[in-house]
């Protein structure tokens, strides 16, 4: 039986649209490793749907994309989709939450009180920068590309067999590589991308077992 992973993607404003589109490289990486990617997308991103999929499909890895705060991951229309009452659903799971602040309290509580194997996420706001004089095509937006590639290093690293700590280190390395490139760039706008990468990299953290891997 293939390893199952659950991908949750909001898509209702510019930044969640970027999250949606920039999850595609993760799907490709997971499928190249013969994993089965189950998606909960757009309007379906609700508390009941996420709970139902976790119970039914038993994914080893859950990748959440959307808005968040210290205690809540939000679903479609900014309605709470994962909150502090959902800890038991995440027992034994590896989670990556690409959402603001969720690692700070939600992830810490899941790992420390509900035996979530590892909860990776951001303990600060997640920042994106984009050009406005082009149509929103996230994967063709070269300005924001380094922000998303650094973030994607975490879930892509995990499906390629890295541990939690190694996948975070892969993201740090990618971030520093981009920081170095941008520091020596003549593009005035790139400085904002640099700030976004620094904030996101600073906020990237985990709780639980750093040696955990997706089976």
């Amino acid at each position: 039986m293939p390893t199952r992973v659950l991908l949750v993607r909001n898509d209702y404003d510019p930044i969640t649209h970027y999250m949606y589109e920039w999850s595609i490289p993760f799907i490709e990486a997971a499928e190249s490793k013969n994993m089965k990617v189950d998606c909960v997308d757009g309007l379906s991103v609700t508390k009941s749907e996420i709970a139902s999929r976790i119970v039914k499909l038993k994914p080893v890895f859950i990748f959440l994309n959307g808005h968040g705060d210290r205690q809540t991951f939000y679903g479609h229309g900014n309605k709470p989709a994962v909150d502090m009452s959902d800890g038991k659903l995440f027992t034994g799971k590896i989670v990556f939450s690409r959402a603001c602040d969720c690692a700070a309290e939600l992830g810490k509580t899941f790992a420390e009180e509900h035996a979530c194997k590892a909860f990776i996420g951001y303990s600060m706001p997640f920042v994106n920068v984009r050009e406005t004089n082009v149509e929103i095509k996230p994967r063709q937006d070269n300005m924001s590309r380094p922000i998303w590639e650094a973030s994607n290093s975490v879930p892509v690293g995990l499906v390629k067999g890295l541990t939690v700590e190694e996948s975070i280190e892969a993201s740090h390395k990618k971030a520093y590589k981009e920081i170095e490139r941008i520091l020596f760039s003549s593009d005035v706008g790139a400085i904002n991308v640099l700030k976004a990468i620094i904030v996101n990299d600073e906020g990237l953290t985990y709780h639980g077992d750093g040696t955990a891997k997706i089976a």
Partner: protein
Amino acid sequence: MTHSDDVKELVKLRLMSTPSNIKVSIGNYGEFSRDQLIEEVEKETPVGEAAIEMELLFIRKMPTLAKRISEQR
């Protein structure tokens, strides 16, 4: 946290160097243009505070970044 007028002025000046054709998404606050961010900093809103924190983190990180990059070269 409130910041001094000097810090606010510094951040506003740095934001003014941002091109007008970009938007910055800061967490759950939404997307902001350069001019909107400057206004938020002036009004000391939570978005303005977040923009200030971003700038200060960037400034604080520069010595570490410079050291790491020089070590890699």
